[in-house]
């Protein structure tokens, strides 16, 4: 599944909240999304949830992809979701990734953070998920 099926390119903001500087997963996923025809805005590391959400709104993205490896995902991922809602931008999907323990995945899914892919996940699977999620949101 690629973005080429639609006229308008899907726009994704990729960011790493908090302190974690291991951005390799985010780098690889950004490249894969670009290769599949999506537009990627790479915000980088050490971002605050406020900055991520403001940038996502300013850039008019369809999705935010968050990556974390230092176990602070249960602090930052929900914060991003809450801020999006506060700013009436709840239509922006949030997709997670990094080192996410299995027991946290259903909790994150419930608040709308899906994917939560770990290392070793096929990039095709990740790209397909992003595209599917955005399309589903758009048709709802």
């Amino acid at each position, binding site marked *: 599944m690629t973005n080429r099926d639609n006229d308008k390119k899907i726009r994704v903001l990729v960011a790493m909240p908090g302190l974690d500087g291991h951005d390799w997963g985010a780098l*690889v996923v950004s*490249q894969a999304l670009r290769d599949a025809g999506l537009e990627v805005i790479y915000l980088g590391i050490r971002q605050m949830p406020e900055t991520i959400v403001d940038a996502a709104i300013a850039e008019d993205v369809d999705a935010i992809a968050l990556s974390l490896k230092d176990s602070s995902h249960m*602090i930052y991922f929900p914060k991003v979701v809450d801020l999006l809602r506060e700013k009436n931008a709840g239509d922006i999907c949030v997709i997670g990734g990094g080192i996410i323990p299995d027991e946290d995945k259903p909790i994150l899914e419930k608040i709308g953070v899906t994917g939560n892919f770990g290392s070793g996940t096929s990039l*095709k699977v990740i790209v397909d998920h992003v595209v599917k999620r955005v399309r589903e949101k758009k048709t709802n």
Partner: protein
Amino acid sequence: MADKTKGIIPKYRGERPLRLDTASGFVVKETYTPDDIRGVSYAQGLGNPGEYPFTRGIHKNMYRDRLWSKRFFTGLPTMQRSNERFKYLLERGETGLIIVPDTPGHMGIDPDHPRVKDHSGCTGTPMYSVECMEELFEGISLEDVAVDLRGDPTFASISEVAQYVACAEKRGLDPGKLRGSTINDSIHCHFTMHWDHFCNPLDLAIKLCVDLIEYSVKYMSLWHPLCVAGYDVRELGINAVQELAFTFAAAIVYIEACLKRGLKIDEFAPRIVFALGGQMDFFEEIAKLRTARRMWAGIMKERFGAKDPRSLKLIMSVKTSGGSLTTQQLVNNITRTTIESLAAVLGGVQSMEPCGYDEAVAEPSEAAATVGLNIQHIIAHETGVVNTADPLGGSFYVEHLTNEIEKETYKLLKEIEEMGGMVAATESGWCQQLVNNAFLERQREIEEKERIVVGVNEFVIPKEEEIPLPISPYLKEEQEIFREEIQSKARKLRETRDNKQVRAALEDLRKKAKKGEDENLFRPMVQAYKANATMGEILGVVREEYGYSYDPFGILNYPFQ
């Protein structure tokens, strides 16, 4: 559909290797002969173990006299748990401790800083005051253990050693009796972990690196103040040649800085260690270690004019590759780590640290630590490989690889030197670009199945059929409680300590820092820790005197205006 007369046909019948090159891209022939290593004489290119150029090992008897230091890393979220883990590991046969600081600790920031409070205990142990060290080493005899303080950036390294020495002196111990090591290598952090200008400006980092080396040369003769790290960069997908070239290029920066300070090469070169990675290409990794020794001996002798034979002997430690491990089928990680550990031993290292099988998914469990130590015990006592030095010496393939890696490494090293050296190569973004490209290429190879990783893109089995292994429980609530505790601990320290003494010690540090780059700040840091100053305060003062903000985030100010 099975043929009823024949039955099931093996799925991989006629299986062949997918690739015929080494992990670093050296083409591998079907066989190697004496012709492939003609031109490198035994005396000049190899030497006996313990003899220049030390290709075959830095000691004559190698492991017959003493085995490598067996380690397994510790970096649990609380000082108390890390202390318990130390005791557990020492019982299970660990001969050298490793302690990894948490993310704020690596960055030189205290746990009660508003921006980092959610990260205390993440991926390591908080180490911000002498109290932390006291708790960490409670009930452990500091004279009898070697401790690797594993903060990569120089800021973290010098801070940790100062805390450690403060703790030791409070127990009445002379720093000269302390055995251990620190990475103290900031350069690679700029393009591996993005601990860059933000919290780790290179000019100040190199100055502090030299401070630690200079102090240790005079007062801590059993300490290894510099372990140049090739490990982290290798983890990101670069090859063995690049790993060695980057490590040597970084080492050269620090060596030249020490010489500029006025230290003599033979004073500090014997104390330098290379901390390299241990990857899966078995023979290439063995050859890499042999190459490193030969190159070091040559560079020390020819380039730096070192005379003391100890300066020419490269001490090496290997950490096996975390990046080679998979989240699928954790049990396979034990196999991988074993192969990588065996290569390190056959390569003649002085210290070794295997990964835990759970490294990719959780904090290291006791079970994984026990397995990691047992791998080393089994290699040491059941295989016989330790009974002779450099058992693969003379292998046509291994000697060929040793030569080839050396040739290519010197070429790349020259390229880096022509760019202006490792600092220039880092600041221009060249290193970052190279590493990014290598990482992406490695991922692409796996995605496109140009490189097989068992359990990931081939030999995949359903998750439910995986052999379950013990993993540390995910202590989410405990972690939240701990984060609250460590912050109130830090606040309490600030409130209950004698702030007059803290101020005096910090002002003394500031006064010394104002004197210029050559003024050694290690001793004033120790005194500040003894007065109960915190890491953030100590490093903040030094940062200010070097023209940087007290707080990398620009939020906090020096509290004793």
